[in-house]
């Protein structure tokens, strides 16, 4: 019983951390969708580029990886703006199908550009303030430093974006654009600029996330897809375009993927060896998708969705 209690505690802590990481990764995606109803398939590739930026510039500049984060953000923002003016604004004229198609092309392009220039082998950071450190706080409850930093950054970023959207002039302009692009234009708001801004914010936030994550996660050209799928589920579950929704959904997904150890602890407690063959671990992402599907069936707009 005690084992189970501790395991629940451990899983919740680990789930919260991971959930905040998922939310952080999904933030940019939901901002972009909120403003212009586009799902960016290349989102994970922005993350990958942020990871490589930190990985490569940190030894080059001789500074700690954490200090390169502004640079990663800058690269992400530039890439976002470039993508917007080079591709996305043309896609906006077409139907949703063409938008998915176009950003998928962007994904292939960026991923294979990385493959061509960086090679396929995964790489990791070996040195840094956050690398390889973790803190034990209580019975077996571990806080890994990179995840902790990412979780803090996640909360700060969400608060910042929330503030930006709800409390600033620019934010109101963004909201106006997302509600009614035509109307916003009459009010003297440049839709183009607002969209580009959304891409800059979206790109920067996910690239910074990447720069931070590379302190713990290995990076390879294909790393994006692992996170893209989770980010998609996060954003859709929360309701496309809802910042609050992405936050809640991210944490929810983090908690879901940490259920298996609790299950295992339960099995040990009741000594049900036969059930161990169920392979609960191999279902952890299955559970995410299944729960996503069930919630969508009950609530087709997502948890906090307001846009169709």
């Amino acid at each position, binding site marked *: 019983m005690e084992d189970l209690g501790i395991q629940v505690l451990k899983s919740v802590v680990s789930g919260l951390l991971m959930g905040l990481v998922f939310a952080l990764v999904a933030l940019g995606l939901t901002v972009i969708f909120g403003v212009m109803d586009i*799902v960016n398939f290349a989102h994970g590739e922005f993350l990958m580029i942020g990871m490589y930026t930190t990985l490569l510039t940190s030894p080059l500049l001789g500074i700690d990886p954490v200090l390169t984060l502004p640079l990663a953000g800058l690269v992400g923002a530039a890439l976002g703006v470039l993508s917007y003016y080079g591709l996305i604004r043309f896609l906006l004229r077409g139907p949703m199908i063409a938008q998915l198609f176009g950003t998928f*092309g962007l994904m292939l392009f960026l991923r294979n550009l990385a493959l061509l220039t960086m090679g396929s082998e995964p790489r990791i950071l070996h040195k840094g303030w956050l690398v390889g450190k973790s803190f034990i706080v209580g019975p077996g409850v571990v806080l890994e430093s990179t995840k902790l930093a990412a979780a803090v950054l996640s909360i700060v970023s969400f608060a910042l974006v929330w503030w930006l959207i709800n409390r600033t002039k620019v934010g109101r302009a963004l909201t106006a654009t997302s509600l009614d692009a035509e109307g916003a234009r009459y009010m003297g708001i440049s839709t183009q600029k607002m969209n580009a801004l959304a891409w800059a914010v979206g790109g920067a936030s996910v690239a910074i996330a990447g720069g931070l994550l590379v302190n713990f996660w290995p990076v390879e050209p294909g790393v994006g897809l692992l996170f893209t799928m989770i980010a998609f589920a996060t954003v859709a579950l929360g309701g496309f375009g809802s910042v609050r929704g992405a936050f809640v959904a991210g944490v929810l997904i983090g908690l879901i993927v940490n259920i298996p150890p609790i299950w295992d602890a339960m099995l040990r407690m009741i000594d049900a060896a036969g059930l161990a063959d169920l392979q609960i671990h191999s279902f952890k992402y299955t559970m995410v998708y299944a729960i996503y599907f069930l919630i969508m069936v009950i609530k087709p707009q997502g948890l906090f969705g307001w846009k169709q």
Partner: protein
Amino acid sequence: MEAVKNAFDFADMPKSELTIAGLGMAFLLLFPVLPHSSFAMATMIQFLMFSLYGMGWNLIGGYGGQVDLGKAQYVGIGAYTTAVMMIRWDVPFWISTPIGLALAVGWSFIIGYPLFRLKGHYFAIATIATSLVLKDLFEVWDFVGGARGLELPLKGDFPNWLYLQFREDYYYFYILLGLFVLGLLVVNGFRHSRLGYQLRAIKDNEDVAKSLGIDAHWSKIKAYALATAYVAVVGSFHACYNFNIEPEDIMSLDLSVLIAMMAMLGGAGSMWGPIIGASILVPMKSYLGDWLGGQAGLAGLDLLLYGGIIMFIAAAQPRGVYGIVEAVRARRRK
């Protein structure tokens, strides 16, 4: 009977298109006797398979405008039904395939009902989710070999028509070509059917469609089931052709996305679109991959170009390559 007449009615197609289609068909019929490399033959078989996948996808994704990114689950159901039935009970291809088709279509009704309550992006992501859930289940289900997959035993005595085992690829080619022609006729019939018109009306404006007595939800489910039939049959064929199936290969997100991409590149919602898309991307994948990756050592350059082309087409003409053709034709008409 009118359904059959509709399937053979090509009167609404421009003459130029019919001419090209006729030439293309003649080329396909003669291909095995023309001088060709075996790699070209293998590429042609891939082309036919992806054309059929794309035609299926196009029914719901193109004509219905519902972006479906979960077709691989039905490839899996078709392929696994054929493989399991052959391995366990020696059931020939020609019997297991209709059963696989029925299972796939049944499954499509079960998940189609809740799926089509969703719209737009929610729908697209949900199709990915359902496909991944099914794949994960197959990966731990021992009855179908789990992640290890299934290998179809060689029955010997080539050519073996019962189990679709041949030494030479042209047998497979002609079988696929038969399916391809059948598939084209069914698409043509579908275009002219009540469901076809209704589905396009739904894509145009769902509220107007409903006001015209169209049960949008049910129409989408029906078209989805028909799309599933295509994919499942080719899945069954794939199992026999490849002799080995694994969830990672035939139920992956990659395959789902590839199917959708080919159809979209060629032109979603037009009859020739998926075929055009497959005729561009399949040879590109095979030959460019071989030249740039295998020989020049420039890993990734082929897919980089592929991504570039997709971006360009999507930005220039959202209706794909066929959309460009139509735009040119419209300009000439003016």
